């Protein structure tokens, strides 16, 4: 792996001198752009939805789309994605439907996780896309475990796990990467270093020179890449995936990027960071950069773009419309899946709840 920051696509959409754009066919390039744009527009729309009180919470990834989608694109279908909470782009790329996503936001009867978690905490076993949980860093150890299992079974599957630079401070990061180093698991640890962990700046997370350098503590490969450059991210991830498949062990990738939006709809970043800083990073926007490149290469044009924007808008609208009117799951589901079968005490508790609801219905009628 190269030393220093890897960058292929510059903020102005031009290719960095001496660098080569990875060979991706134009159809895929446009698909990547589409998913990035879709991700961006979904984030914007759902943030509004939250403000309108139609959903309870939202957490997006504006500014980090290249880091997320570029890395996920380096995988094959058989590989695993273990997400943090900002990886909608990776899910969409894998084929997670907008309708399913919206159902989860509403926690309705067609939500594949049965209304059990906050918005943005979906899961898709079918797509080998992990179950999202909120505690920062918790997913990292089991990404190592999945990789370990794949290695023990002798398959050539890789595992891509996402987390923020804040998560590197948790013990779970440490034990996970250390285990991966010892067992040479085919795990790619992708740190979205978006400079902030809610109000905590990168410098307060760790005194290390970079996040990538932490790889040395585990005897594994580490690389730092411009996280807003989809080609750079794709390339280093692809290399890491290849190494993983060859049994050469894990890689820690630091994708240097920036959270352009608030941490989540519960947050107001103006309380802790300067507008200037944000403006500076807006100029490095991964989406603009990629669009400029595509246009310069003749793969894309403003007309197509306008059409795509319209298409995406309608798509989102349709998914929302369809999902928002679906009611909640049946109350019985509340007691399912705690264990594989419903044990006696949960049956009793369901009964208790039913009796109360019946009583209530009777009283309301009266």
């Amino acid at each position: 792996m190269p030393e220093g920051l890897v960058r292929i696509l510059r903020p102005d959409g031009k290719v960095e001198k001496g660098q080569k754009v990875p060979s991706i066919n134009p159809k895929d390039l446009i698909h990547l752009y589409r998913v990035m744009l879709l991700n961006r527009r979904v984030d914007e729309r759902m943030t509004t939805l939250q403000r309108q009180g139609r959903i309870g919470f939202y957490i997006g990834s504006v500014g980090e789309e290249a880091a997320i989608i570029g890395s996920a694109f380096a995988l094959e279908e058989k590989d695993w994605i273990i997400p943090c909470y900002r990886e909608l782009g990776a899910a969409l790329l894998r084929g997670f439907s907008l309708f399913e996503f919206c159902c989860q936001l509403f926690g309705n009867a067609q939500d594949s996780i049965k209304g059990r978690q906050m918005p943005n905490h979906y899961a898709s076993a079918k797509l080998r896309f992990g179950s999202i949980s909120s505690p920062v860093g918790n997913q990292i150890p089991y990404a190592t475990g999945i990789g370990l299992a794949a290695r023990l079974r002798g398959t050539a599957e890789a595992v891509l796990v996402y987390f923020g630079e804040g998560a590197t401070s948790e013990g779970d990061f440490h034990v996970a990467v250390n285990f991966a180093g010892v067992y040479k698991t085919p795990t790619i640890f992708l740190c979205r270093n978006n400079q902030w962990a809610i109000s905590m700046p990168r410098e307060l997370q760790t005194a290390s020179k970079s996040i990538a350098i932490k790889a040395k503590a585990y005897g594994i490969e580490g690389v730092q890449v411009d996280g807003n450059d989809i080609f750079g991210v794709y390339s280093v991830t692809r290399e890491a995936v290849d190494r993983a498949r060859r049994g050469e062990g894990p890689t820690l990738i630091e994708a240097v990027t920036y959270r352009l939006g608030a941490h989540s709809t519960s947050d107001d970043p103006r309380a802790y960071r300067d507008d200037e800083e944000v403006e500076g990073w807006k100029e490095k926007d991964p989406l603009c950069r990629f669009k400029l490149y595509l246009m310069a290469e003749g793969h894309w044009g403003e007309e197509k773009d306008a059409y795509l924007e319209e298409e995406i808008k309608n798509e989102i609208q349709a998914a929302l419309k369809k999902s928002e009117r679906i009611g909640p799951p049946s109350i019985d589901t509340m007691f399912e899946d705690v264990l594989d079968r419903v044990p006696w005490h949960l049956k009793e508790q369901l009964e208790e709840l039913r009796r109360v609801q019946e009583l209530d219905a009777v009283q309301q009628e009266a």
Partner: protein
Amino acid sequence: MPTMNIIQAVNDALRTEMRRDDRVVILGQDVGKFGGVFRATQGLFEEFGPNRVLDTPLAEAGIIGSAIGMALYGLRPVPEIQFADFIYPAFDQIVNEASKMRYRSGGQYACPMVIRTPCGGGIRGGHYHSQSPEAYFIHTPGLKVVMPSNPSDAKGLLSASIRDDNPVIFLEPKRLYRAARGEVPEGEYVVELGKAKVVREGDDVTIVTYGAVVHTTLQAAEKAAQEDGISVEIIDLRTLLPYDIDTILISVMKTGRVLIAHEAAKMCGFGAELSATLNEKALLHLQAPILRVTGFDIPFPYTFEHEYLPNEKRLRKALQDSINF
């Protein structure tokens, strides 16, 4: 007396105690310049500076571990864990270190610290922004456990906890943060740990509860009085460990009927302990089974959080069951 909500009362307690004792130090994620994600530490960084209010990296074991070190050194750390759901990375430091430090060193080292953390549901937080982990800590010898239900208690209990010489888990019911308002004494104000409060007097059934559920039981009691003619006495425990057994027993002797209500899961929850102790100490006074209205034994759900919580309906049904037994 000024009127405050719980966040303001917590803030007031912190400020007052920090002015009173320069050993009091705050640390946690986002607690500094930002003032905490719930704004509980707002303005403290500005007043006391970075040597008294420390923003930390994102590692609960580091926060609590550092706090233990500070306590051993002689400071009085007040670490904040952003949500109680995220306290588990520090669980080992709490149950194997902080709680046992005094005992295992033969009393040579004390570990005075207050772990403040928002708990409980009702804010659409799902599995990971709604948990009520008090039973884990009540079961662990060497800790005190406190949960206020209103602003003045929040201030008084937090101040008392900071002055206490033991590690205290101070659980703040987050759905009350802005919802519960009330008068709060100005300046230094302490509510003794270990004392419950009878927040409603009644003759037929005793409800033992704490935290946010206190308010739900008050509403249910009102309804039960009006519509079912049941007279309910409600005890707000305030300190869960060591809890105020005398106040409970006096009430139970009077009513003979007991209902315990909390948000945490039922199985091995604190309600179980209270029930078992009352069975030991007051069996002959019981005119009905001790009932528990609690969170169900499932992970805290999102869509059905109001069904999950000990709501008014469930409480009223239990009151009726108790009376009709």
